[in-house]
């Protein structure tokens, strides 16, 4: 009987070396794909957290800005100018004029409560009938880049400013706010927003 020569045919399958190569290549491809997907997923999660925090910071900043805009400049307490700042601003709003006299609103305030890391608006602050509305939580203890060391660490001209800070300059108030959130993965997201508003309310009835 004539022996059929052993030659590679389509039925012969894969050799061990081909199999090993294929497995190694597949492993590399899967590892890279997994790495890319994980990275994309983390990046997307981070961006989403940043966007949500930024959106919240903007919304609260706008809320504070409108409150201060409607205030009367002469009623701002304390009247803090740079490099000092305050995290507790009180004011009154001129509601109108009756018989030549200005009608003032109850005292209002926008403050930072450090223990709760919250910004709240209050009516009659400090009084027994004080009413509070929390506008946001997640407020950082200090503005981004600032440390409690008696120096201006973040170069904004203010010393040891808190996560919510007000600086009065003549008729305008500069408002800065830093929110921070720690994600499930332990990553810290920080967002700082800032604006300046001028008190619109006139100190006296227009003549």
């Amino acid at each position: 009987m004539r022996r059929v020569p052993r030659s590679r045919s389509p039925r012969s399958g894969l050799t061990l070396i081909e199999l090993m190569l294929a497995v190694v290549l597949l492993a590399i491809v899967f590892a890279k794909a997994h790495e890319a997907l994980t990275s994309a997923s983390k990046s997307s999660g981070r961006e989403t957290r940043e966007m949500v925090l930024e959106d919240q910071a903007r919304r609260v900043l706008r809320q504070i800005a409108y409150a201060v805009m409607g205030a009367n400049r002469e009623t701002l307490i304390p009247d803090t100018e740079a490099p000092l700042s305050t995290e507790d601003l009180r004011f009154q709003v001129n509601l109108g004029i009756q018989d030549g006299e200005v009608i003032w609103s109850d005292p209002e305030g926008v403050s930072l409560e450090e223990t709760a890391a919250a910004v709240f608006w209050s009516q009659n602050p400090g009084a027994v009938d004080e009413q509070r509305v929390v506008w946001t939580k997640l407020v950082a203890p200090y503005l981004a880049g600032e440390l409690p060391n008696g120096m201006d660490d973040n170069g904004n001209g203010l010393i040891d400013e808190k996560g919510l800070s007000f600086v009065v300059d003549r008729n305008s108030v500069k408002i800065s706010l830093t929110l921070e959130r720690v994600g499930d993965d332990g990553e810290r997201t920080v967002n700082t927003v800032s604006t300046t508003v001028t008190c619109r309310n006139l100190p006296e009835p227009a003549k």
Partner: protein
Amino acid sequence: MNLRPLTSDARSRSFDARRKAWRGAALLEVAVAVPIVLVALGMFVQMFLMGSGLRGSGRDSWAASGAAQTLLEEMRNEDFGDICRLYNADPFDDPAGPGTSPGNRFAVPGLPPLEGMVGEIVLPITNSGTEVVPVWELREDVEQAALGMPRDLNGDILVDALDHSEDYTLLPVELRLRWRGVHGPREFSLYTVFAELR
């Protein structure tokens, strides 16, 4: 049951048939499949990039509008009669001495300028002098439709060709910002009119 052994020819035909059945993809098929996969992958990646770009673009727009609003508030904080001299292009008429005012250009942190600075403050001002010796005047008769000009600025019900930088009661302002965005040059403008309440 007939178990005749296969002849050499028959075995060869059988292998050929199977080889044809298992021969894998032809070059043409691969050539078609690869571009399709690449196009699909490209679209997928582009979708991600566009999403990221849109977020960046939205952030830029917010930074621009926020900077413009903040500057308007700072302008509002100045004495009304000084606004024109503080924010025009002429450094020699600054209230606190030459070169002490912010001028008509401003930077916005985080926005790369196309050229010079990102922001420009446009007032109804015209140069009635020369390029070498400019004389900047706040005029009622300048043609700036975006600012609502020409119009009466000092409340005398007349539109004249005089300089009103000392007696204006209305001051139209445009804040124009131009920067290099993720998808090319971007522009944002904000218009307002400052008025002196009497």
